C-alpha cells in the first residue's frame, strides 16, 4: 500500500479590532439590528468613495512585526470581482499583487506533553481587505434576506505556505496565530462571532514526491475541533478516492459538523475568475519607516520571546513554555506566580497552573482571569510544597480550600487543619514500626520480591498519618527498615 503525505496550507481571516469600518465611518460593533450600521459606502450607493482607516493599517503593521514579515513601503488595493447579493459593489476591495505584508513565520509546538515537537510555519503574505455582508437563507417568502452591517468590516487575511503535514499541525498553527493576534491586540479572536475563521487547502501526495497533489479548499472553519475533524475527513476521502483509481478535482468544499463530512460547494465549471485589477478609487498605501518604528515601540513582549525566556531562565520544556504563552492572561498569571514563588520554583508553578488550576477552570468553564485563586495565593501554596511543609498531595486539599473561598491564606489553612507534613525522622520511624508490625503479610511478600507490597505499606502509613507523612522520607526509611534483616523477621 502506498504511503501518503498530507500537505496543508491555511488562510485565516482575522477581523481587526477597529471602531469603524475599513473604508467608511460606520461602526463595526457586533450584534446591531440589521443594516443599522451600513452607510452609503457600505451599501455601495453610486458616487461614494472609500477612505482607508489608519487603525486597520496599524493592525497589519503590528502583525507584520510580530511574525517578522516584510512590511511593504508601498502596497496596492485591488478589486476582486464577483457577484453575490451580500457584496453590493460587485467587487471586494482586497490586495492582490502587492500585499501589505510579505513573508514572516510562526513557530508552533505540536502534540501532547512529553511527545511534542517544534516546527516553524512559513507565511506567504498578509493583506488587508473588506468583509462582505451576511445572507440569511431562512424563508422570506422564497427570498433571501441581506444584512450589510458586516460589509466593510476590516479583515487581515493571513496566508501560509503549504507547510503543514497533519491536521494536528494545522490546528497547532491556527491556535498559535489565534493567540498571537489577541496578544498584539489586533483581533478579539471570537470564533463564534466569526472574528477569526480559517480556510484549509488540503492535498495528498505519495511520500517522497516533490509535486503537490490537487488541493481542495475547506471553507470557513470556525472552531479548532471542526478544523481537526474536517481535515481528517478530507484527507481520508482524498486518499480513498486516489486508491480507488479516481482523481481529485480542484474544488471548494464545506464541512458539515452534523455529519462530519466535507462536500463540494461549486463545480469546476463555475470556478471563479475574479478579474483582479488595481482599484482606481484608492491610491497606493504608503507606510513610512517612522510609522513602523512607532508601532514597534508600542508592541508588547511577544509570545515567542517570552517562550524562549521561560525555557532559558526557568528551565521549562518547550511544551510547557508554549502552553504558558498560549494567551496573554495565562502568561501574566504565570509570570506573577513565579515572581512571588521564586524562579527556582517555576517548574512547580507551571505544573500547578497547567494541572490543577487549568483542570478546574476547564471543568467550571471559567477563564483564567476569573480564577478564584489569584497568582500570589498559588505562589504561596507552591512555596509550602517546595519547602516540604506540605506534600504535593496535601497541596490539593489546600488548593480546594482556596478555590472554594473558605480560606484565603495558605499558612492558615495548613495550621488550622493540621496539614503540616510529618518530616521528623524519629516520629516517622515510630509510625513505620507500627505499620510493619500490623502488616506482617505485606512485609513477607515484599521480601519475596513483590514490589507491590511496598506500595501497600506506604499506603498504610499514609492512611495512618492522613496523608501527611513526607513521602520521600517514608520511602527511604521504609526501604531501610525492610532491608534490615532483623526487623520483624518472622519467627522460625
Amino acid at each position, binding site marked *: 500500500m502506498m504511503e501518503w503525505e498530507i500537505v496543508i496550507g491555511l488562510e485565516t481571516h482575522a477581523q481587526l479590532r477597529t471602531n469603524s469600518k475599513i473604508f467608511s465611518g460606520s*461602526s463595526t460593533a457586533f450584534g446591531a439590528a440589521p443594516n*443599522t450600521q451600513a452607510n452609503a459606502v457600505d451599501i455601495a450607493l453610486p458616487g461614494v468613495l472609500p477612505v482607508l482607516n489608519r487603525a486597520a493599517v496599524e493592525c497589519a503593521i503590528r502583525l507584520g512585526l510580530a511574525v517578522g514579515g516584510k512590511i511593504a513601503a*508601498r502596497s496596492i488595493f485591488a478589486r476582486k470581482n464577483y457577484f453575490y447579493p451580500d457584496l453590493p459593489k460587485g467587487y471586494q476591495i482586497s490586495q492582490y499583487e502587492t500585499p501589505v505584508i510579505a513573508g514572516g513565520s510562526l513557530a508552533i509546538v505540536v502534540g501532547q506533553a512529553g511527545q511534542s515537537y517544534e516546527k516553524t510555519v512559513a507565511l506567504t503574505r498578509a493583506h488587508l481587505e473588506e468583509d462582505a455582508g451576511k445572507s440569511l*437563507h431562512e424563508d422570506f417568502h422564497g427570498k433571501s434576506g441581506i444584512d450589510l452591517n458586516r460589509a466593510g468590516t476590516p479583515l487581515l487575511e493571513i496566508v501560509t505556505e503549504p507547510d503543514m503535514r497533519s491536521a494536528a499541525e494545522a490546528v497547532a498553527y491556527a491556535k498559535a496565530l489565534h493567540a498571537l493576534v489577541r496578544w498584539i491586540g489586533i483581533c478579539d479572536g471570537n470564533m463564534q462571532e466569526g472574528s477569526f475563521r480559517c480556510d484549509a487547502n488540503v492535498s495528498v501526495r505519495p511520500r517522497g514526491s516533490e509535486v503537490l497533489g490537487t488541493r481542495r479548499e475547506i471553507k470557513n472553519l470556525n472552531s479548532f475541533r471542526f478544523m481537526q475533524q474536517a481535515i481528517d475527513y478530507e484527507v481520508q476521502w482524498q486518499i480513498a478516492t486516489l486508491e480507488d483509481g479516481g482523481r481529485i478535482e480542484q474544488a471548494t468544499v464545506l464541512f458539515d459538523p452534523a455529519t462530519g463530512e466535507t462536500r463540494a460547494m461549486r463545480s469546476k465549471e463555475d470556478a471563479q475568475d475574479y478579474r483582479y485589477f488595481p482599484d482606481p478609487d484608492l*491610491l497606493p498605501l504608503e507606510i513610512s519607516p517612522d510609522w513602523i518604528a512607532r508601532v514597534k515601540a508600542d508592541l508588547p513582549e511577544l509570545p515567542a520571546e517570552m517562550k524562549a525566556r521561560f525555557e532559558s531562565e526557568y528551565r521549562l520544556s518547550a511544551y510547557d513554555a508554549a502552553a504558558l504563552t498560549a494567551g496573554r492572561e495565562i502568561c501574566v498569571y504565570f509570570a506573577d506566580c513565579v515572581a512571588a514563588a521564586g524562579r527556582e520554583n517555576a517548574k512547580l508553578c507551571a505544573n500547578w497552573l497547567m494541572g490543577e488550576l487549568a483542570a478546574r477552570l476547564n471543568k467550571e468553564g471559567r477563564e483564567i482571569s476569573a480564577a478564584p485563586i489569584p497568582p500570589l495565593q498559588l505562589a504561596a501554596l507552591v512555596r509550602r510544597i517546595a519547602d516540604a511543609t506540605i506534600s504535593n498531595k496535601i497541596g490539593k486539599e489546600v488548593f480546594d480550600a482556596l478555590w472554594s473561598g473558605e480560606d484565603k491564606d495558605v499558612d492558615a489553612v495548613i495550621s488550622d487543619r493540621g496539614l503540616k507534613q510529618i518530616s521528623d525522622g524519629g516520629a516517622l520511624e515510630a509510625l513505620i514500626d507500627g505499620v510493619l508490625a500490623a502488616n506482617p503479610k505485606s512485609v513477607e511478600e515484599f521480601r519475596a520480591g513483590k514490589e507491590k507490597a511496598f506500595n501497600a505499606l506506604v499506603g498504610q502509613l499514609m492512611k495512618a498519618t492522613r496523608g501527611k507523612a513526607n513521602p520521600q522520607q517514608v520511602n527511604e526509611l521504609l526501604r531501610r527498615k525492610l532491608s534490615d534483616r532483623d526487623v520483624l523477621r518472622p519467627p522460625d
Partner: protein
Amino acid sequence: MPLNLDQIERLARLARIEISAADGGETRDRLNDVFALIEQLQAADTRGIEPMAHAFELAQRLREDAVTESDRREAYQAVAPEVEAGLYLVPRVME
C-alpha cells in the same frame, strides 16, 4: 490571442451580462479589436520598469478610526424594492 465564442459566453456569465447568440459574433469581433490594440501595447519593452497601479505619483490619505456615521437605514431602505425585518430581500441565493 483572439477570443472565441466560448470565452465570450463565459465572460458574459461572470459579468452577469446577457449576450444573445445572435450578438455573440459581433461582440467577439469588437472585443478582438480591443485585444489587438492591447497586443500592440504589450509589444512595448517594459523590462526594468515597475508596474504602475495609478496615474498619479501620490499616496492615499488615511482617516482616523472614528465612527462618524449614524443609522440611516430607513432612508436607504425607502428606495429598496423589498425589505423585511430590517433586511434587504433578494431572489433566493443558496450555495
